[in-house]
Structure formats: C-alpha cells, structure tokens
C-alpha cells in the first residue's frame, strides 16, 4: 500500500462534503490520503453511471474489492449509509469474481494483475463496472483505470467495455477522462 504525499486540499473539501463530515471551518485540515481520494472517486463514479434495471442489479448495491485491498476501512467509511440507484450500498472483499448480478463495482487490486484476463472474462455478460490501479488496465479490457500524475488523481476510460456491459456513463464523467478508448475517444 502506497501512501502518497499530500493532495490538494480542494479534494479534502469535496470529501468533507461527500462524507458529510465535520466543520469545514477548520483552519488547516489534514490532507486526504491517495486512497481516501480514490474511495471518494469510486462513490462519484457510481453517481455518473447508470446500471440497467434487470437481474444484474440485486437488492443491494455491492462494491467489491478483489485481491490485495489498498483502501482498508476507508472504503467502508466512504460508502457507509449511502444509497446508489435507490439501493443500500454494501462493501465486500472477494477472492473470485461472482456471477453477474452479484456485484456492481469491482475494484481489482494490483495483486490480481497476472489473472486479469481470466477475471475480466468471468465478468462478461454481467454489468459490473471494473476499476483498477494498474497501468494499461483499460487497454487490457478494464473500464476505468486510476492514474496519479504529480499528486493529482485522475483516470482513463474504456468506453467500449462500459457499453458492452450495458452501462450508461454520463458525458460529464467521460470528458474528465485523460484517455478514452472506444467510441468518442480521442
């Protein structure tokens, strides 16, 4: 787990607002860690993506982490008490991909890089948004890949994969991506 240096405080501000946390009037609040930011991004992704209302969506909205977990309790705290697309959220740690409909967002830890192709294949036909920390994740069939450039977290998107999973991704999100693969990509 790499704890990276201080991030821009605006990020903390948005985290604060998202988490509904303590007073923003605090004079010099501690800067959020990289994975606090990435956890917030995961929540925000869910806000700009629409899952199809069919059996791929269960009674709860499941955010799953596969392999090595870089978030720890940060992720649980981020999603605690939140609802997405009308469903309560649930954070799980899984070892293997589950059948379609069981999970909606899958964060694939860097430890799973060797088994990536197999994991992604398992997910085919389902509607899970795949997110990872790995270099070249989108080129290899993933949907959203986090990047870190000079202390700023951003991401790439593989729009073909998003559409194949029948997910509707808001243009507001797409235009923030540094690299977009597929339709409308640069």
């Amino acid at each position, binding site marked *: 787990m790499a704890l990276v240096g201080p991030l*821009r405080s*605006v*990020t903390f*501000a*948005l985290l604060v*607002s998202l988490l509904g946390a303590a007073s923003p009037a605090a004079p010099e609040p501690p800067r959020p860690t990289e994975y606090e*930011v990435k956890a917030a991004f995961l929540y925000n992704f869910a*806000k700009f993506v629409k899952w199809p209302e069919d059996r791929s969506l269960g009674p709860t909205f499941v955010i799953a982490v596969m392999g090595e977990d870089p978030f720890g309790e940060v992720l649980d705290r981020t999603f605690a008490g939140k609802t997405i697309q009308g469903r309560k959220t649930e954070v799980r740690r899984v070892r293997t991909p589950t059948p379609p409909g069981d999970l909606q967002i899958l964060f694939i830890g860097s430890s799973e890089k060797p088994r990536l192709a197999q994991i992604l294949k398992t997910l085919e036909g389902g509607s899970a948004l795949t997110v990872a920390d790995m270099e070249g994740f989108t080129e290899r069939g993933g949907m959203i890949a986090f990047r870190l450039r000079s202390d700023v977290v951003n991401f790439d998107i593989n729009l073909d994969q998003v559409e194949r999973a029948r997910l509707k991704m808001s243009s*507001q999100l797409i235009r923030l991506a540094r690299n977009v693969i597929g339709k409308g990509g640069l």
Partner: protein
Amino acid sequence: MRILRRLTIGQKLTSIAMLSSFAALVSASIAFLAYDLHTIRQSLARRILTDAQIVGFNSVSPLLFNDAETATTTLGGLRAEPAIVAAIVRGQGDARPFATYFRDGPSGARLALPAHVAPGPVFAADHLLVSEPIRFEGRPIGTLVIQADLAEIHSRQRRYAGIVLAVLGGSFVLALGISRLMAKTISRPIVRLADTARAVSSQKDYSVRAPAEGRDEIGLLVGTFNEMLDQIQRQDSDLKEARADLERRVDTRTRDLAAANKELEAFSYSVSHDLRAPLRAIDGFSKAVLSGYGPQLDERGRHYLERVRAGTQRMAQLIDDLLGLARVSRRQLVRQRVNLSEVAGQVAAELARRQPSRQVRLDVQPGLSAEVDPHLLTIVLENLMGNAWKFTGKKAEAHVEVGQRADGPEPAFYVRDNGAGFDMEYADKLFGAFQRLHADTDFEGTGIGLATVQRIVARHGGRIWAEGGVDKGATFYFTLERNP
C-alpha cells in the same frame, strides 16, 4: 416669466410652442432611455445568469473529481460572451479559486473577485456580478462567480443619448420653423392692428383702417376695431361741424351783444349827460327863488323849495354815479403793480377828512399788492370802504379792516366792518344797480356803488361776494386776477 413679458406676441407664441414641445420630447426621451437601460440591464443579467447556470452545471463533475484542468476548460467556454470579464469557481467552503477565467489574459488576473457574493445578479457602477451555487444531488459543492463589464450597456446608452440629442436638435429646428410660421399667422394681424391704433392715436387720423384678415377672434377684433374707427370718424366730423357752427353763432351773438351794449352805453351816457342841463336849471332857479324871494315866502314855501333843491341834488348825484358806471365800462384797462395798502390808507384819510366827527378804528394789512388798473382799484376801495364807513355810522365803536385772506381756494382781498350788515338771504341782490337793502332814511345812497364795484372786478377777471348778518357787520371779498 419676467423675460416672457418683454417678448413680442410672436416670440411669446413661438416660445410657448417651443417650450412645450421641447418638454414633451425631453420627458419622452428620458422615459425611453430609462426604459431601455432597465431592459438592457435585465437582458444582460438574464444572459449572464443563463451562462452561469450552464457553466455551473458543467463544473459539477470537475469539482467532484477535483479536475481543475477540465474546470478551467469549461470556464473557457465563457469566451463566447464578450461582456464577461472574469469567472471563478470555488469549492464549497474554500476561499482559494479552483478554476478561473479572465477575458483579457493573465493581466486580468489582478481582478479581485469578492469571496462572498450574494446569489443572483448584483449591479455595481461599472460591472455586474452573478453568483451561482454549484449543486450536486441537492447539496452545494461550490460556487461560480461571474463578473461582466457594462461597457456594452454604456456604449449603447451613449449611442442612444447621441441619437436622442440629434433627434432633439433636429426636432428643435423643425419645431422652431413650424411654430414661427404658425405664430406669424396670429401675431401679424395683431401687430398690424397695433400699428393702426398707434397711427390713429398719434396722427388723430380716423380714416385709416386695420387690414382685415381671418375669421378667428383676431379677425373679429380687427373688424370691431374698424367699426369703432368708423363711429369715431363720424362722431369726430359731427363734432367738428357742431363746433364750427357754434363758433360762428357765438361770434355773431358776441358781435350783436357788443353792438347792443355799446348802443346802450352811449344812450345812457347821453341821457345822463343831457339830463344834467335841465336839472342844473331847476336847482339854479330854485336857489335864485330862495335867495331873491325867500323873505316873501312863508316857512312852508321855503321848506318846499329846500325839498326841491335836495331832490335835484340827489338826482345829480344819481346821474354822476350812472356816468361813473358807464365810464367804468368804457374805460380801457391798464394793469400795473399797485400797492393796495397805500391806496386803502389814502381812501381812509379822505373819508376821515370828510367826516371829522367820526371815530373809526381802521386796520390795513401792510404790503398788499396786485396787478390792476390803479384808477379802477381806487374806485373799488372808495366804494367798499365808503360803505363800511357809512354802515358803521350807528355803532359806538366802528371798526373797518382791509386785508387779504390767505386760506381758501383763491387769495381774496376783503373789506370788513362791524356795521349794520345784511340778511344773507338777499346776498345775491347786493350787486344789482339801484338795489338797496336799507331804507334811504337809515343810510343814504344811490344803489349804484356795488354795481360799479362788481363791474370793475369783473373787468379784471375777478369775482366779488359778501358775507354777513343783520347787525353783525359785513365782509366783502374780491379777487382781481383771473384764476390761474
């Protein structure tokens, strides 16, 4: 308004038309400008607000994903609105800008946008501030503030003001021309009427007429004025004719009267003169009978002859007085400055000499003088003072006073006594010839003296009148000069 009074009617009418049309135009222009300013401000505010809403919406995801670069690009879209000078996005509760936009490049970055701006459009002197909250799922996550300059509005206002000024100037000239023309149609007949009136008044020429024009009130006025001139001209010529006729008649009468008067005077003079000869004969022979045959007559005969003599002497006196009256009328008037006080003194001395037994107190005001005929004045004073002497004859303390009354409408001389006086009821009979108010037995006299005095006073152009009462004395006032 005092300036207005000095203007001619034409100028007044023009001024009235100009002022009212100018006032109407100016108020309309002000209303138009104010309405335009309001409208253009509203539309600018609405435009900027719409931009703010669009950009605010597009700033949601950059804020959420902390993507300042995209946020800056999004703000760059505001370049399409040239009025926007600057825009700034701040995260919720963050004083530092998250993304900024400056129309005029980094040099504009010095623009200090206030940290807290009330939501909605706020107009300042030279700029407009619009603050738009950025919300996501109903929660505020940031604020967008846009500053727009009002150069567009100001230049438009300047342009409009220029147009309004040009229109005002143009319509001023136009209105001036029109109102002058219109004013002339009203003022010209009035001016002509005034000229005519002036000609009539200064040259007394009632034959001129004001040129008639129009059927309005002024035309009516001109018509009435001309009718009045007609009447005045007619009356003027009638009057002239009547006056000429009157003068002719007066001349004739005066000539007739003068001739008759002369005849009468000549007649009375010759009669009086001719009467003296037989009278002298009667008196002379009566005297001769008395001296030659007196002793042969008895007492009664002598007494009768004495009565004859007294009668003839009295008649002679009457004839003398009548002749005096006639002379007074015929004599030429020669005026010179005469000292009245001196003459009164001489007359009083003569009276005292004639009746040395009388004790009369005399007061003559010193320094009385007048421009009169000295001979005639002496006759006046002789008569008036003689009367005073005579009618105080029965008073124990006789008092005669000669002076000049300073008060009253004219400075009149007077002769006052404390004698028998007269009844004011007969005051108008005092000056008639042969009119006597007292019995001959009480005070002797011919009744011609006051008539003579009145004749003299009248010839001097003066006036005589008397005041008095029975046993209360009499005062005779007279003036010797025509009233100035």
